[in-house]
């Protein structure tokens, strides 16, 4: 039952009068309120602090402790109150939930204490209102992380059925999972460092040879450096290929930034191998070597900080771009001005506007190399204006960018949180809906059972099977039942619905049972068996196809019979009645038609009545369950 709108149920039931003139079938009788007691004040004594509320307030949420009969366990006869030995402060939030329908999380409360209180009173935390939900989830996550840090060793337990590929991928992504992964992690890190250092040292002039010129080490020890380079590239290639193999989605892996960096790092070597020592292309070859420096970016796999920096730079790209744009504008303006100001002076370095760009940039960033200086007075004036404005222009955006960094970073995190919350909220709603519709279907089956047991007259089982569903639930179910009668269709759960769809597509087989009756009516009522998945339910596949004729007759009969839809159980003697009377009985006995039970083993009644529970589809003879929907079946054949 939908929580929190219990107060509106009387209204919804009253509005159901709108369906009455339209309905073709008689309505089910309403559940009677067995104990019509007045609304009374309940006293809840929580560790000495007394709370008072109406009984109906607590009854709004029947699946919690206070709303159900579970609170009777805490009833104190002498003081006529309910005593709970819990925290009264937390109880305030719990009681407010009943009053307002919204659960709030008080900020001063410890998260685990609050969780315990909720668990005690049977309230699921997902009901927490949107105003407090974020705070609650944040605190919960913090707490969980804190606990997690303390026991990190148990965390990465290997799942038993991960295949080799998944294990490898996990090893690559998280080096702490196994020793092998750790070894691999350090080895690759070492080789990246070696490769970078090699590239650097290659260019250092080392030792003097008999020649005058100092040669860089790279040219002196060519073979050694070549071997080191080869070794590093081997390792990198192997690593890349292994990652490619282990990746769950190879296409996505190949598009990722890290993989591109990997490729760019090792490609120059292979291109160098392939290319000949042609003079023309050696220039290009040298350029390619520059790309070897990209190997240093491979460190970002090893460093979390680098990754975060890269991510924040990426997310601040628009701010950076704007900064660049405004700087460019300033540079162009000042360069133009300086060029024209210095045009007059002789031997001026400001040969063109682009040449003045260098001066402007150096001045604005307050570097001031001094390789280009203005000589005219106008040039000096504008130069000073340039340097002054440079200070402002460079200094101003830096705090803006820094604050943007943190804002965007937090915003991204919050957006992810909100997306996850939205998904969780939709899932909650879906589950709640499913829960209430399942509750109705379940109670229908139970209701059926009760009626059958009425028929067999076994008192004990009836009491046993009579689940104590609250009055609210029974009223809600009665409302849904009225809707079913109005539309002459029934609610079924999804699996049965799909089953029906599938079987509806098949050809109808003539069931052996139907031939026994020689009466279209009863064999079509077998369809109602499908409400409970019996193994031989497939027998009654699609009587619609073959028996529409008979059904139409029956439905005609049904419409005309506006008989008493009394809940009287028709007796078994109706077994012997003729067809027309039988159909009339079907109209009449909306709940029970044992008339249908002209089948193999009518004597198996009672044991099957006991044995049958909605949960397990016993191959009971298709007698018992043909009841309720018999007349519904007929009408819907129209």
């Amino acid at each position, binding site marked *: 039952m*939908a929580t*929190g*709108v219990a*107060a*509106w149920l*009387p209204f*919804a*039931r*009253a509005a159901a*009068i*709108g369906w*009455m*003139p*339209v*309905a*073709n079938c008689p*309505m089910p009788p*309403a559940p*009677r*309120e067995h104990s019509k007691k*007045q*609304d009374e004040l309940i006293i809840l004594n929580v560790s000495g602090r007394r709370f008072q509320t*109406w009984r*109906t307030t607590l009854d709004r949420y029947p699946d919690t402790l206070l709303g159900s009969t579970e609170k009777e366990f805490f009833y104190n006869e002498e003081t006529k109150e309910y005593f709970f030995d819990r925290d009264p402060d937390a109880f305030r939030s719990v009681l407010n939930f009943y*009053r307002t*329908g919204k659960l709030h999380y008080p900020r001063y409360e410890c998260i685990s204490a609050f969780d315990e209180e909720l668990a005690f009173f049977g309230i699921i935390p997902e009901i927490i209102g949107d105003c407090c939900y974020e705070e609650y989830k944040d605190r919960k996550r913090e707490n969980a992380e804190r606990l997690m840090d303390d026991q990190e060793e148990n965390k990465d337990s290997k799942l038993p059925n991960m295949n080799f590929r998944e294990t490898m991928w996990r090893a690559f992504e998280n080096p702490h999972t196994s020793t092998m992964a750790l070894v691999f992690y350090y080895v690759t890190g070492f080789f990246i460092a070696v490769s970078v250092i090699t590239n650097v040292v290659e260019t250092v002039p080392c030792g003097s040879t008999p020649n005058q010129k100092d040669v860089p080490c790279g040219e002196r020890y060519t073979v050694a450096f070549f071997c080191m380079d080869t070794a590093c590239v081997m390792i990198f290639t192997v690593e890349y290929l292994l990652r490619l193999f282990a990746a769950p989605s190879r296409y996505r892996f190949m598009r990722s930034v890290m993989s591109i960096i990997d490729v760019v790092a090792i490609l120059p070597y292979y291109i160098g191998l392939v290319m000949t020592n042609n003079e023309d292309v050696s220039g290009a070859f040298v350029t390619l070597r520059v790309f070897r420096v990209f190997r240093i970016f491979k460190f970002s796999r090893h460093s979390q900080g680098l990754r975060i920096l890269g991510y924040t730079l990426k997310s601040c790209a628009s701010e950076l771009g704007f900064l660049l744009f*405004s*700087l460019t504008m300033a540079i162009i303006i000042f360069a133009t001005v300086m060029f024209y100001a210095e045009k007059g002076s002789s031997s001026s370095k400001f040969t063109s506007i682009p040449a003045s760009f260098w001066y402007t940039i150096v001045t604005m960033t307050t570097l001031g190399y001094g390789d280009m200086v203005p000589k005219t007075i106008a040039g000096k004036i504008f130069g000073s204006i340039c340097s002054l404005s440079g200070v*402002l222009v460079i200094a*101003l*955006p830096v705090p803006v960018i820094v604050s943007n960094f943190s804002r965007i970073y937090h915003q991204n995190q919050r957006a992810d949180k909100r997306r996850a919350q939205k998904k969780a909220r939709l899932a909650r709603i879906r589950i*709640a*809906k*499913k829960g209430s*519709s399942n509750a109705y279907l379940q109670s229908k089956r139970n209701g059926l059972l009760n009626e059958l047991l009425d028929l067999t007259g076994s008192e004990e089982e009836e009491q046993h099977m009579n689940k104590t569903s609250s009055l609210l639930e029974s009223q*809600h179910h009665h409302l*849904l039942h*009225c*809707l*079913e009668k*109005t*539309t*002459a*269709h*029934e*609610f*079924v*759960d*999804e699996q*049965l*619905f799909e089953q*029906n769809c599938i079987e*509806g597509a098949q050809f109808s087989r003539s069931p052996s049972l139907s031939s026994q009756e020689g009466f279209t009516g009863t064999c079509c009522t077998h369809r109602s068996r*499908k409400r409970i998945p019996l193994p031989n339910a497939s027998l009654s596949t699609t009587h619609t196809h073959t028996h529409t004729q008979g059904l139409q007759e029956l439905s005609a009969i049904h*419409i005309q019979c*506006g008989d008493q*839809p009394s809940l009287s159980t028709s007796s078994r003697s109706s077994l012997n009645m003729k067809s027309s009377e039988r159909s009339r009985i079907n109209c009449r006995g909306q709940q029970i038609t044992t008339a249908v039970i002209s089948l193999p083993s009518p004597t198996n009644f009672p044991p099957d009545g006991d044995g049958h529970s909605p949960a397990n589809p016993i191959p009971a003879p298709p007698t018992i369950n043909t009841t309720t929907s018999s007349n519904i*079946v007929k009408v*819907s054949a*129209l």
Partner: protein
Amino acid sequence: MGALMVIFSLQPKQKRKRRDSVEDELELSAVRHRPEGLEQLEAQTRFSRKELQILYRGFKNECPSGVVNEDTFKDIYSQFFPQGDASTYAHFLFNAFDTDHDGSVSFEDFVTGLSILLRGTVQEKLNWAFNLYDINKDGYITKEEMLDIMKAIYNMMGKCTYPILKEETPRQHVEIFFQKMDKNKDGVVTIDEFIDCCQNDENIMRSMQLFENVI
């Protein structure tokens, strides 16, 4: 240059401010409705004092502002029918309760409607039902209006029904209804035809008494 940047960054904030002020206005104008006194309501409806108290407590709990607008109404009503889509029928129901057609159901409307439904004579109840079906309130139920209502009712059943809902089921149901109700076969059902026909139908008469003990 810095000024330019400041200008650019201010722009989105202004738009946000404008939107906020509109929302603030809406909040101020949100109706805080107080119903008439208990004595007047007691005189106007057939509920006892205690019943009115209980009704009002429940109503005010769900709608602290004192009125229900259509969206809230649809939400509340949809919670009773989780399997299907109750919003269309809730719309018709809302119009039936909102007798002064001001877009919101106040406690008086609510209690007046309930008084008719739960404590009214059969004639009044049938009147109310006719009013519900007559969407444009012109005194005649046409086939189109009935079809709309029927489709709305069948929508509440949802998809998973047994037997499977077909496209023409609402239409067929409307046909049956008109066959029964439309005595002079002029294609519309008037209030007199409706009341006459319902009073002659025992099923309907009995089901009208079904919800006597709701409050």
